[in-house]
C-alpha cells in the first residue's frame, strides 16, 4: 500500500468521522432546534403583520386577524420546510449541507464583541484567542518536555528520572481546571500578581487591548504548562529509553561517539515519529479540554463560548462550535498521520 493510498484512506475516515459527529449533534439537538425555529418564525410573522397598519384595518374582528396570522405562519413554515420533522432526509441533508458550507445561521442570545449575531462571526472572533493560548502552551510544554525527558532518559533510575516520573504521575492525576482554581487562589488572592478573570477589562478597540490580553493570558498559560509538561516529559523519556536500548545506539557508543550527541541527535531523531504524533494529538486534545479551562479562567475564546452557549442553550452556536472543534481535532490527527508517515518510512512502505 503506497503512502498516498494510506493518506487517502485516512482522509476518508476523517471525513466519515466529521459527518458522523455532525449527524449525532444534529440528531441530538434536532427536535429542540425545530421548536426554536418554529417559535422564531411565529414571532417574525406576527410582528411583521401587527406592524403593518394597512393589513390590520382590513380585518373586521380580532379572531379573523388571528386566523390570518396563523395561516401566514403555516405558509412560512412550509416555505422553510419546517412542516416536515427534522429527521426527514431532505431536512437532515439541508442542515448538514449548510453546516459544511460554514453557514451556521444566527445565534439566539450570544453576540460577538462587535455585536454581530452571526455564528460564523462569533466563532471567528474567538478562534484566534483559543489558538493563541493553547498553541503557546503546547509549544512551551513540548520544549520543556523534550529537554526534561532527554535528561531523565540519559540517567535512568537516577534521582532526576524518578522525580520526573513521580511528577508526571501526580500532575496528571489533578484535573487541569482544579489546578486553575488553585492558581487563581494563589496568584489572584494570596499574592495578587495576576487578574483572577482572564477577560481583559479594556475594550477591544483600545490599542492596549492586545497587551492586556497577553497579561491576562499568563495565569492560564502557567497552569497549562505546569500540568502538561510532566506527563509529556515522561512520554519522551519512555520513547528515548526504548530507542537507547537498540543495537545501533550500542554500536555508536562502542564507536566512542559523544554520549550527548548520541542522545540529542541520533536517539531523538529516532524517537521523533511517536513524539510528533502525540504532540499533534495533544494539541487537538487540549482544544477539546479548552471548554473547561477557559470557563475557569474566563478566557474569551471558543471554549468559554461553548460553555456560555450551553448555559443558555444557544443551539446554532453549539452546533457550529462542535463542527469547528471536530474539524480542528481531525485536521490535527490527519497532520499527525502525515508527519508519522514522513518521519517513519516503514509506514510508507507498508
Amino acid at each position, binding site marked *: 500500500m503506497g503512502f498516498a493510498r494510506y493518506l487517502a484512506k485516512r482522509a476518508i*475516515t476523517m471525513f466519515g468521522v466529521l459527518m458522523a459527529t455532525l449527524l449525532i449533534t444534529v440528531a441530538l439537538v434536532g427536535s429542540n432546534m425545530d421548536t426554536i425555529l418554529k417559535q422564531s418564525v411565529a414571532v417574525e410573522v406576527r410582528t411583521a403583520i401587527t406592524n403593518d397598519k394597512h393589513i390590520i384595518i382590513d380585518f373586521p374582528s380580532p379572531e379573523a386577524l388571528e386566523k390570518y396570522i396563523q395561516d401566514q405562519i403555516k405558509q412560512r413554515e412550509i416555505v422553510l420546510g419546517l412542516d416536515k420533522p427534522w429527521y426527514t432526509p431532505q431536512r437532515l441533508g439541508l442542515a448538514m449541507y449548510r453546516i459544511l458550507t460554514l453557514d451556521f445561521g444566527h445565534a439566539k442570545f450570544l453576540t460577538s464583541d462587535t455585536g454581530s449575531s452571526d455564528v460564523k462571526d462569533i466563532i471567528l472572533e474567538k478562534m484566534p484567542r483559543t489558538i493563541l493560548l493553547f498553541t503557546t502552551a503546547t509549544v512551551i510544554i513540548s520544549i520543556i518536555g523534550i529537554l526534561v525527558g532527554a535528561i531523565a532518559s540519559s540517567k535512568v533510575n537516577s534521582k532526576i528520572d524518578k522525580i520526573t516520573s513521580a511528577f508526571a504521575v501526580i500532575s496528571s*492525576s489533578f484535573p487541569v481546571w*482544579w489546578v486553575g482554581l488553585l492558581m487563581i487562589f494563589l496568584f489572584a488572592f494570596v499574592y495578587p500578581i495576576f487578574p483572577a478573570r482572564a477577560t481583559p477589562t479594556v475594550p477591544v478597540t483600545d490599542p492596549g487591548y492586545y497587551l492586556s490580553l497577553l497579561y491576562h493570558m499568563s495565569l492560564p498559560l502557567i497552569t497549562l504548562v505546569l500540568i502538561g509538561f510532566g506527563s509529556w516529559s515522561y512520554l519522551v523519556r519512555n520513547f528515548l529509553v526504548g530507542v537507547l536500548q537498540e543495537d545501533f545506539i550500542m554500536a555508536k557508543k562502542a564507536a566512542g561517539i559523544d554520549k550527548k550527541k548520541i542522545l540529542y541527535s541520533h536517539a531523538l531523531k529516532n524517537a521523533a515519529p511517536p513524539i510528533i504524533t502525540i504532540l499533534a494529538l495533544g494539541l487537538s486534545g487540549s482544544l477539546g479540554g479548552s471548554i473547561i479551562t477557559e470557563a475557569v479562567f474566563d478566557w474569551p475564546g471558543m471554549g468559554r463560548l*461553548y460553555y456560555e452557549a450551553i448555559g443558555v442553550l444557544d443551539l446554532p452556536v453549539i452546533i457550529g462550535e462542535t463542527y469547528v472543534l*471536530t474539524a480542528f481535532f481531525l485536521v490535527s490527527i490527519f497532520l499527525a498521520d502525515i508527519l508519522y508517515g514522513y518521519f517513519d518510512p516503514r509506514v510508507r512502505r507498508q
Partner: protein
Amino acid sequence: MSFSPREIRDEFLKNNIGLIGIGILGALFGLSIIAFVTIPAESLRQWNDPASWLAYPKSAMPAWINYFLPQKIPEHLVLLPQASTQKSGDIISVTNLFAVDYQYDSFPSDFIYQYGAKYSGSPLIFMSVARPDGMVLQLISTSLPSARTEAKFTGMIFSTDDSMKKNLKNNSGKFSFSLDTLSSGDIVFSKLDQNKILKGHYIFKVTIYNVGGNLSLDESKFILGGKVYGLMGTDELRRDLAVGLLWGTPLALFIGITVSVGSVILGLVYGVFAGYKGKKTDETMMRLNDIVYAMPVLPLLIILAVTVGNSIFLIVGFLVIFGWVGIAKVSRSMALQIKELQYVEASKLMGQKGWKIIFKHIIPQLLPYTFASIAISVPGAIITEAGLSFLGLGDPTFPTWGQILHDASSYGAAERGLWWWIIPPGIMIAITGLAFVFMGHAMDTIVNPKLRR
C-alpha cells in the same frame, strides 16, 4: 504472555507502589462505608435544600485551623441538651442544660435556642446562663402561646431578642463599662472589669414550666454562632462540606469503577472478536473504531448531557460509549497474535465454535492486561465526570466532588480565598485517581517486563 494468578499476586506484593495504591483504595472504601453508615441517604436529598442547613454558619473555615492560630476563632457549636423532667403536684417542669467550655479569643457572633414543645395550657419559658465566675444572668422569661388542646410548637429564641437585652442591662451595675451598645453575646461572655472574653465553663439553662397540662420537649438545641465549623468547614450555602466530601467518595468510586469495567469489557470483546474474525469483519469493525476514536469526546459528552439527560447512570453510559476504543485496538492486535498460536489452531481443527475459542482460549490470555487497563482507565473516568459536574452538567441529586467545585467556582471561592472549599475536593479526586494509577502501574510492570528496566 501467560501468568498464573499466583505469580501475579506474588509479583504484586513485591511492588511497593502497587501496595500503596491498594492501601489508599482500602481507605477510600473505608470512607465510603463510613458515609453509608453515618450519613443516611435522606440527608443526601437535603444537600441542595437550603432550609436544612440554616443552623450552620456561612463560609466557615474548618475548626482545626485554630491549632495554627495564636488567636482562637470561636467555633460554631451546635449543643445538644442534658434534659430532665420534674413533676411536683400540678406543676411540670422540663429543664435543658447546655454546657460549653468557651476557650476562644473573641465573642460568638450570636446564639440561638431552638426547640419543639408539645403541650396544652400556657407554659412559661425561662433562660439563664451560669458564668465561669459564678454569676448567673437571667436572659429571658416569656410564655408560649396558649393551647387548649395538645399542640406542637416550634420556636427559637435569638440572642438579638430585645427583652433579653433589657434583662441583661439590669445587671449594668456589675459591669464597669457601659452595656448600651453591646450585643447580648458580648455581655454574656464578657469579663466584669473590661469588655474582654471571659474564658471558662458556661452553662445555659432553659426551663419550661407548665401548670395543669402535660409538657414534653424535643428537637431542642443550642447554637453558638462562630466562624469556624467542623472538620471541613462550610460553604457559602451553609452546607457542611464534610458531608459532601464523604458522600463524594462512594460516588466517585462507583463512577470510576463502573465506567472502566464497562468500557474495558466492551473494548476487549469487540477487539478480540474483530481480530479473531479478521478480513472484512475486522476491516469494518476497525473503521467504526477509528470513527469513535477520532470523535471529540468532551463536546459530545456535553451535548449528550444537555439533550439526553444527566442522571448519574446515563453519564456512566456516555463515558463507556467513548471509553472502549483504545482497549479495542490493543486487544485486537493481541488477538491477532494469539489466534496464530498452535493451541488455538488445534481447537479450531477440533471443531470448537468461534465464540467458545474467543472466551475460553483468547480472552483468558488477555486478562492480566485487562486488569491493568481497568485500573489505568479509572482516573480518566473520574476526572471526566468531575469535569462535566464542574460545568454544571452533573447529576444534581448527588453531591459529587466535581459539583462541590462547580459551586465553589460559581461563588468565586478562589478569588475570595475560600481555600477549604477548593482544595479538599481536588485532592480527593487526585488521591482516588492515584490509587488506581499506582495499582495499574504495578500490574503493568508485571505484564510488560520491558518497563522494569
